[in-house]
């Protein structure tokens, strides 16, 4: 390796072996932090559903490594670390900062971010960020998604604009006490806070060992090289795309009474393979609204970037190097741009972000077969609502927690059917689901059903994932479930001839069996014996259903994903026999005729 090493020395470059070795180690640091957070957390939103992410940011505020965090979480941690430097120029080893300020780079106030600067021989090298969605943040209502908040004051969350919470590795108790006075079930919050600090300190320890092992000089060069490498990968991926200017639009459902006309969202995507650049323009959109649905700079940007990166494929490293090739144009005081204080951004990680991801991914499908995705579920059903109340089994002890029982069908891709637990587009199928037994042990709830819904998805050569329905209710004491929902009036669309899915919805089932649907912003109060029906949506289909292989259609019938009628009417596949005696089969000639006539009488597809 002598010559290569010498070359590397002259150009001040890291040799081609050390680069992946160091990148691997960096990834391992993030995983170690992730593992600590997951296993030490208290609330199910963090420990069970994994609604948290860990990242390593360089001292010049570039996102370096994120392991398997949520894209929506980790981008923007660079803006947060910059605020740490701006607001606390004397930051030092042993410090930790609590940051949940949506106007300073955080995602939304429910995500508490712990920032810990990492030093080597007195010099700042990295900052680790551990961002976790809290079970409660002191909002005026017991939910972490306050769609009904006209502004940050009505929202009520405690906002920490990068506030110091540890000095010399010890808590600053004032801050802890403030949180304990205003956050519901404070011991749960403190347990999660401890887990986050533990994860950050473990990351700090490993990074210090990393710098000591490779030396300050090499580590600095490594980060630059790794960003350059990531950029090269992104360049190659963009060069493989056709040139094009794509436009997509979709509205978020009306949210009565705050946004009676819904929220139209326009996305313009400019793909320039020659310049190896993708630009997403979100500026042609409405001003900030007087409700909690406004996005933040971070979530507007990352929703668009996530949409683009999933379409580029190629397991691109999600870091600032890759991001050099994706530009997102935002404007100030825009509902999907940079929020203007004091507009509320309580729901900034979901809802509008899901629309942006869907619109972006489906716009890519216009580039040709093989590109892009159909829409995924964006109906945040009440099976993912925030439940609170008291537990008569434990002397009336209070509880509050977000549940994770919804499924959410994924949009189909050109190659595969959509997944059955996408959750919503920004969650990308990464969330863990709650165990029925653990939920029933922890909360005084009885869950009656949780199952996928036949025929709920969009159809196509590849079909969407199915919707999930959950029926549940309190066993005794009243229970309150709050949530904000989209997709009650519109449903995920298919692409390239694929069809859309069925609507989702939430309804109260009275003791007499009658049902009353809830609006998008729901406050669901259930007494013992009353039930909640929560249903999300399937994903959209990709390509014409008439092109779906008959064996797949047959299997879908056998597995009750679709009915015999849908097989015939939508897929043009005649299925005979029944599941009962294992005699299901495709009638090939009837199918050929059906498909031919559905194709407009032309040759069978």
């Amino acid at each position, binding site marked *: 390796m002598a010559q290569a090493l010498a070359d590397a020395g002259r150009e001040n470059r890291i040799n081609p072996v050390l680069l992946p070795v160091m990148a691997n180690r960096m*990834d391992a640091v993030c995983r170690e932090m992730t593992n600590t957070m997951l296993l030490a957390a208290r609330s199910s939103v963090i420990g069970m559903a994994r609604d948290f992410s860990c990242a390593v940011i360089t001292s010049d505020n570039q996102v370096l490594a994120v392991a398997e965090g949520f894209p929506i979480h980790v981008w923007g941690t660079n803006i947060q670390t910059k605020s740490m430097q701006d607001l606390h120029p004397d930051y030092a080893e042993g410090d930790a900062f609590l940051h949940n300020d949506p106007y300073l780079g955080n995602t939304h106030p429910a995500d508490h971010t712990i920032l810990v600067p990492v030093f080597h021989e007195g010099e700042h090298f990295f900052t680790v960020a551990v961002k976790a969605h809290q079970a409660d943040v002191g909002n005026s209502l017991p939910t972490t998604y306050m769609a009904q908040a006209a502004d940050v004051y009505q929202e009520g969350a405690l906002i920490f604009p990068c506030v110091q919470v540890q000095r010399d590795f010890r808590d600053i108790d004032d801050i802890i006490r403030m949180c304990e006075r205003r956050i519901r079930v404070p011991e749960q919050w403190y347990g999660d806070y401890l887990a986050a600090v533990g994860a950050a300190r473990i990351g700090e320890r490993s990074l210090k060992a990393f710098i000591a092992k490779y030396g300050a000089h090499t580590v600095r060069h490594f980060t630059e090289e790794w960003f350059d490498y990531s950029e090269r990968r992104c360049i190659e991926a963009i060069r493989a795309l056709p040139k094009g200017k794509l436009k997509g639009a979709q509205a978020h459902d009306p949210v009565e009474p705050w946004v009676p006309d819904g929220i139209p969202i326009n996305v313009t995507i400019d793909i320039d393979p020659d310049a190896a650049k993708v630009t997403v323009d979100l500026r042609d959109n409405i001003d900030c609204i007087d409700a909690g649905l406004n996005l933040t700079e971070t979530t507007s940007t990352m929703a668009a970037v996530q949409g683009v990166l999933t379409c580029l494929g190629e397991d691109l490293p999600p870091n600032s190097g890759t991001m050099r090739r994706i530009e997102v144009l935002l404007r100030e005081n825009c509902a999907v741009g940079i929020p203007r204080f004091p507009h509320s951004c309580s729901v900034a990680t979901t809802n509008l972000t899901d629309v942006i991801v869907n619109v972006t991914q489906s716009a890519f499908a216009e580039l040709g077969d093989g590109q892009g995705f159909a829409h995924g579920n964006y109906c945040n059903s009440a099976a993912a609502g925030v439940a609170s109340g008291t537990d008569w089994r434990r002397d009336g002890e209070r509880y509050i927690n977000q549940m994770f029982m919804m499924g959410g069908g994924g949009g189909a891709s050109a190659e595969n059917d959509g997944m059955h637990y996408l959750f919503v587009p920004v969650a990308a199928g990464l969330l863990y689901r709650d165990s029925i037994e653990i939920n029933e042990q922890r909360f005084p709830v009885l869950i009656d059903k949780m199952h996928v819904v036949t025929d709920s998805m969009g159809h196509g050569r590849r079909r969407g994932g199915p919707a999930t329905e959950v029926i549940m209710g309190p066993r005794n004491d009243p229970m309150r479930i709050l949530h904000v929902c989209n997709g009650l009036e519109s449903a995920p669309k298919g692409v390239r001839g694929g069809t859309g899915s069925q609507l989702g919805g939430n309804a109260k089932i009275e003791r007499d069996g009658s049902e009353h649907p809830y609006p998008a912003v729901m406050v669901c109060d259930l007494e013992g014996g009353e039930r909640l029906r929560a249903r999300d949506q399937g994903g959209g289909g990709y390509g014409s259903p008439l092109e779906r292989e008959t064996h797949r259609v047959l299997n879908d019938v056998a597995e009750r994903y679709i009915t015999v009628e849908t097989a015939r009417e939508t897929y043009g596949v005649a299925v005979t026999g029944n599941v009962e005696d294992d005699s299901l089969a495709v009638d090939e000639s009837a199918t050929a005729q059906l498909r031919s006539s559905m194709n407009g009488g032309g040759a069978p597809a």
Partner: protein
Amino acid sequence: MGYRIAVDTGGTFTDVVVADEAGRLTVGKALTTVERTFEGFSGALANAGDIAGVPYERLLAETEMLIYGTTRSTNSIIESKVAKTALLTTEGFPDTLLYRHGGKREPLNLAMEFPPPYIPRRLTFEIPERINAEGGVEQELDEAAARAIIESLPRKRIDAVAVALLWSIVNPDHELRIGALIAEIMPGVPYTLSHQLNPIIREFPRTSSTAIDASLKPLMQSHLAEFESDLRAAGCEGEVLISTSSGGVMHVDDVVAKPIYTVKSGPAMGPLAGIAYAGAEDQGDDVIIVDTGGTTFDVSLVRSGQVKYTRDTWLLGEWIGHNLGLSSVDVRSVGAGGGSIAWIDAGGLLRVGPQSAGARPGPACYGQGGEEPTVTDAAVVLGYIDPDYFLGGRMSLDVTAAATAIEQVAGPLKLSADEAASAVLTLAGEQMIKAIQEITVQDGVNPGESIIVAGGGAAGLNIIPIAQALGCRRVLLPRTAGALSACGGQFSNIVTEFSASRYAHSNTFDFEGVSATLSGIAARMDEFEEKLRGRSIERFGREYFVEARYINQQWEMEIPMPMDRFESEADVERLVETFHDVHFRRYAVKEEGGAIECINWKGRITAFLDKPSFPAEPMTEAALPKPRRNTRAYFGEAGALDTPFHLGDDLLPGMVLKGPAIVEEPTTTIVVYPGSSATVTAGRNYLLETGAAGA
């Protein structure tokens, strides 16, 4: 005692390790015969007999104990060749196996394919019944409905039935009643009840293990019966024991009742060999065990003599595949081995794996049509493998083909062939390092404080740089390294676990309830022990564990209990203290003064079997023999060096080889890098000093 034989039938090779009365171990190998396992076994045994100079018939006739490890169940699951199995579950919850517990790798990959649920939806049946979290009956079992469902199963040609109802762990009445109905309506059809197999809270892992177990019963019952009868017919009268995923062995009839324990049992034997060798060579009881094969690299961990266990073992993909759900030996596998393919990505970076050339076509140097550069090709180019003495001369390698293949990555990187080959080996090692770091760090273990015991045909190629990167000073490479799993069978005990679910809060500790639970577990262990005493086993050990968490913490942590019963608040306090300590070690935080919730209780009983004792040979003062040959080999930054090659058989205990040097054993090659050394121990194993600073 007579001979003791341990067998490991892998996908490609069947390994046999024979221990004679003096404790000497001999390794034999043959190709696995899928149609009839016994043929591959007898081939491997004959091979060992040839080496040891004992006729095959005599080996069999004088065998007192045979330990059989099989990948049959694992492969049947991977290839979807298990029995047609029905799942009976609580009405309203037909999709437990479809949803799993959610999550996936690769955040940006939305186009991945998800394996179907382990039991298809069409063979999943919802039973009207419901029990609540405290064991109360919310809805009585509708026996007529259950009966109608079970009566429909024979028409669907169902061969096995899994029954997993919500909360059967606190009230098993409904599951038991359904079991009785199955026995009545479908006599002879095997079934598994979830509360009996795996009584843990969380319906997904419990249902998953129940489904897997039931689906294996018809197959494993006939497979084990066939193997045993073949053995008897060939004149073997010794006792037959089966390796399990819990790192022990069980009698055939116990395994037939719970065949899921044979899944992934091969790698679970590795740690036993690790403990045995590290102990015999006085290397302590903190051991990292690695096994490098052609396509996978397995890591397991022993800390203070205790094997590390996990409940999170998956087949066909973490999170999206099938979960074993049982507590089994924690073995992390990564797709890295001799066959891993090197390539250059779109950003110009060299990558190794996860694609593998496998056994066919295999690395380019095998000359079987493979053209892509692999780790083995890199080792050939570097001069580490003698092309004329691969696998003890059983196969000759094509050096030119290896060089041509490596040139595919060397060219674009503007590296020489040596430099590129060295880079390939380094990057392959990188994935192994990551796997070792994950398993150790997760448990709060500093790898630098452990010894590595390395096995597998390809382990010796790069274990020294791997150990250096981890800060490990010493590596032990057993002479039987090529058959580590089979070797582990030689050092196994009969191990069985009994568990039960019982909630207890440390501030309001339910002494009565917990005592009843623990005595229930103890009674089952008594019964088990009684049965074995009938087979003249006399030494037993018992350990108790509890899965506990801080109040409302999401995941439980299994901790060994410092007591086996609770008599006073002081006992509870001791348990809470133990919990704080373990939590701090693993997660760097603990909640001072915090209470804990105990969820699942477990007893593990070990029946100790006699083991081969390692015969120690006298240490020689003699000088190293003249090497078989000297060849140029390339060592990264040290460059190309004149390197002596020795045959393992030529070396005597006490001899020390200073790097650079290469030792060839019939089933493995040991590369001693510059700056490190290898000592032949009294047990004729290799103790490598890596030159790392250590912990």
